[in-house]
């Protein structure tokens, strides 16, 4: 399939990218790894008239130990997140969840920032960073601002990013040895999750993010609250779908998704507590 024609502009820095996006306005799209955007363009479901390629902004590709958190450059590829010794040590849930994104070829190209900014509730990483209480650093024409993951996702494929803003960094709190589990349920390994659960726990404290359970990634706050109040894992997991509003699709009814969320949350919390 052949995308509709567009102009191509390459940015050499984050600042230049922001300036170009400001210049071209709503017709322009940022191109990082391209693994969310190019498939849509090939099917002509997206027809931007300008692509601003930020794929070569190499100073946005890094994983840094920043004390209480790990800082990840938005253009860090999935494969580099998955294999980062810093993340494997301090945020193993994110490193592991990233190893479930797409397939190896996709992970060689796709970036964490591209995946988060695309704001697809079926993607693994938005819900995972949500569970981990991450903060996103966003640069715009007037400087940078920070957005909590919990405030970032506003609707299906819609985020708090302004049209002239660029996601530059993801700050993920260290897990400090908390137990964790990532439960991805799908029919084919390469596909998006039918339902996914990213969870960590330390005693009665827990964070649970749900993949593909609503038009936005879901933070299962009722589960965490139940655990904190002393409820058993089984009873807490029964609340997994409380914040969810899943859709039916070819692979799952809404009811089945709710059921799966409860089962997988129970399994995740059990494994995390293990």
């Amino acid at each position, binding site marked *: *399939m*052949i995308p*509709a*024609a567009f102009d191509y502009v390459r940015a050499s820095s984050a600042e230049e990218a922001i300036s170009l996006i400001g210049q071209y306005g709503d017709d322009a799209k940022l191109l990082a790894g391209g693994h969310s955007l190019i498939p849509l363009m090939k*099917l*002509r479901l997206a027809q931007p008239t300008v692509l601003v390629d930020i794929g070569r902004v190499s100073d946005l590709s890094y994983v840094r130990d920043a004390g209480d958190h790990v800082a990840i450059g938005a253009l860090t590829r999935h494969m580099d997140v998955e294999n980062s010794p810093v993340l494997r040590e301090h945020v193993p849930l994110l490193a592991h969840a990233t190893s479930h994104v797409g397939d190896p070829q996709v992970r060689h190209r796709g970036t964490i920032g591209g995946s988060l900014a695309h704001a697809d509730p079926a993607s693994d990483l938005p819900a995972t960073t949500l569970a981990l209480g991450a903060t996103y650093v966003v640069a715009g024409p007037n400087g940078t601002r920070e957005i909590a993951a919990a405030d970032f996702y506003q609707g299906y494929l819609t985020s708090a990013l302004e049209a002239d803003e660029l996601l530059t960094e993801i700050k993920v709190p260290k897990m400090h040895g908390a137990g964790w589990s990532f439960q991805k*349920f799908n*029919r*084919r*390994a*390469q*596909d998006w999750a*039918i339902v996914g659960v990213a969870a960590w726990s330390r005693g009665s404290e827990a964070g649970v993010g749900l993949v593909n359970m609503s038009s936005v990634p879901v933070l299962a706050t009722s589960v965490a609250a139940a655990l904190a109040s002393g409820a058993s894992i089984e009873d807490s997991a029964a609340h997994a779908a409380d914040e969810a509003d899943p859709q039916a699709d*070819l*692979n*799952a*009814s809404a009811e*089945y998704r709710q*059921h*799966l969320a409860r*089962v*997988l949350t129970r399994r995740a919390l059990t494994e995390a507590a293990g």
Partner: protein
Amino acid sequence: MTMTDQPTGVLGSRMLRREDPALLTGEARFTSDIVVPGALHLALVRSPYARARILSVDTSAAAALPGVRAVYSGADLADLWAGPMPCAWPVTDDMKNPAHLPVAVTQANHVGDGVACVIAESAEAARDAVEAVIVEYEPLEAVTDLEDALSDRVVIHDELGTNRSYTWDLKIEETDGACDAAFAAAAYSVKERYVQQRLIPAAMEPRAVLAVPQPFGGDMTLYSSTQVPHILKVMTALTLGIPEHQLRVIAPAVGGGFGSKLNVYAEELLCVALARRHALPVRWTETRSEGCQATIHGRGQIQDIELAADADGRLTGLRVRLIGDMGAYLQLVTPGVPLLGAFLYAGVYELPKAFDFSCTSVFTNMTPTDAYRGAGRPEATYAIERAMDALATEIGIDPLELRRRNFIPVDKFPYEAYTGLVYDSGNHDGAATLAAEMVGYTDLRERQQSQNVPGATKRLGIGLSTYFEMCGLAPSRVLASLNYGAGGWEAATVRVLPTNKVQVVTGTSPHGQGHETAWSMIVAEKLGISPDDVDVLHSDTAIAPLGLDTYGSRSLSVGGVAIAMTCDKVIDKAQQIAAHLLEANPDDLEFSHGQFTVAGSPDRAMPLAAIAFEAFTAHNLPDGMEPNLEAHTTYDPPNFSWPFGTHICVVEVDTETGEVEVLKYVAVDDCGNQVNPLIVDGQVHGGVIQGLAQALFEEAVYDSDGNLRTSTLAEYLVPAASDVPPVITGHTITPSPTNQLGVKGVGEAGTIAATPAVINAVVDALSGLGVRNVPMPASPNTVWSIINAAQGGSQ
């Protein structure tokens, strides 16, 4: 004379494939790899509606785009066609067949039906122009449900007055009413309904076509990613009304077919017609999402099957009612697919003449169905094998034991079945016993007892499938009795060149099966030469003008046997020459290891190489003998070949999620003698996973408006390596007595056997929960819902 077919050890060896180096290095040329300067690109405007009247087609904006040579509506092209798109299998005299043109003129009848087309200088320009063609439609109500179609509530093709294409009956009774009587007297009976979902064949190479006008005189070369270059040539000539001898069809490297490339498609006809009109090469390459809508689908049947059995569980009667989903039109062999299964509904079991089969096929507003790996036989095998498990449950005996009570005994072969067809050879108990041993059947049943206790969330299931395949679609006379529009023969030429290299010309047309390797092995064995000295020529109607191509597991059992028979003719002729040159009586010569020797005088010998050269120079041949060492055969086999086997699948079902995990898959297949066991195993592996994919993963899903919701490989779930199990293969060998190689087909066996084995295992795992049937594909959501329903809706 004494002929000793002394094996050289080639036949039956795991010889590596000669096809592989070109494919492994990227040097092989698929149709879209062929570079032809100046070729124009075809693209089609396809209907977004399942059923819509075409009110107008405005091509002006598209035609004005840069690089666009022409834009045609269906009406613009109507005079190019001498006839409608061909259907070669009018199964009944009164079969309804709607007019089907390569580009629709008045009404589109499925999403993806072509309504206009573009010829442009590049693929990009053609694609852009497609977007610019303005078609005004009047959407009409679509029919996607088979029983709704049958009701004629909405008639899709006005001119037919009904959605019923045909009803085809096959009632075989010892005496009138024998079938009804069997059911009346039955100690046990079961009545089941099974649904064969629609499948998308999804060969990895999308279809591609390239039509190249030749210098002077109007000759045309058509390259196509097809399984059937010979059939395509005849049908293209007839449909376009052009002289057949001016058409040459070449199937270059072809990336899989599975029946989907056993057809004559609109794009093939369009490329030829427009290459003639524009006097330039015209090419077309399918995109995957286009292919999901415009290349045939497979299966699509509702099956009602009833078994009657006596007190011992032996079958006494069998009744089948089918509704076949033809889709919007009849493609090449669409209507015949259910018939191919009609003869296999009793599977590998003895059945008295108490058989009552009827199939009614209907039109729907979906992509036409046609042959897909197994074509009718997987459906039939699924129904009988699922129903046998239902019967075993009804009687309360082990499903393997029930099958054993019904197997045709080994000493009854060749066996004339209730249909009158003669099964050539079989040892069903042998295959079942080996499979049961390999899988550890007895231990598994014990483990199942202890594992599937009340409350267990991981339940073990063991599924069996014992199958027969009717393959090598032939003899021609039998095909005639089914109204099939072609014969079942195959042609071969074997030519020994002056330097003792051999050219084999075959009418088979491989697309992954390894014919070049296998045919060279047959010739090497017969002529006592190295397979490296054999060249196999195929898939080009100018080089191999006679043939009926590759489908229906026919290539070895018809085409390969034809080659072996032709080798015998070559040896016969060589023997006459050798006798002449050695001044011996031909009957005193022995042929072995590529050499003729006078019996009792080992020093009087002549190698084939010397004879080939003598035949070429023709200086000293027997009186009246024609020069050159070459022979030809057109072989019409006396019978189908009947491979068989037993597959056993072991699954664990997670009752909390509905997920099915295949723990083990054992396939025991008997395809008679094996030319190359490496290739046989490969065919079984691929077939099994394709059958398993029907059971667990794949379905072409339409909504009630007729929109295909699985139109890409992101939605249509062809499984990957991580989603499927290894396949443990075993074999018994029961040679076919009807051909000199003792071979049977194997291309479809795995697909036929696997689907019921997997579903039987899933149902077996859940039987303790009151589950009696699980629809396909047994997706986690479906399995979970079935468990819930069986448990009274609570989970």
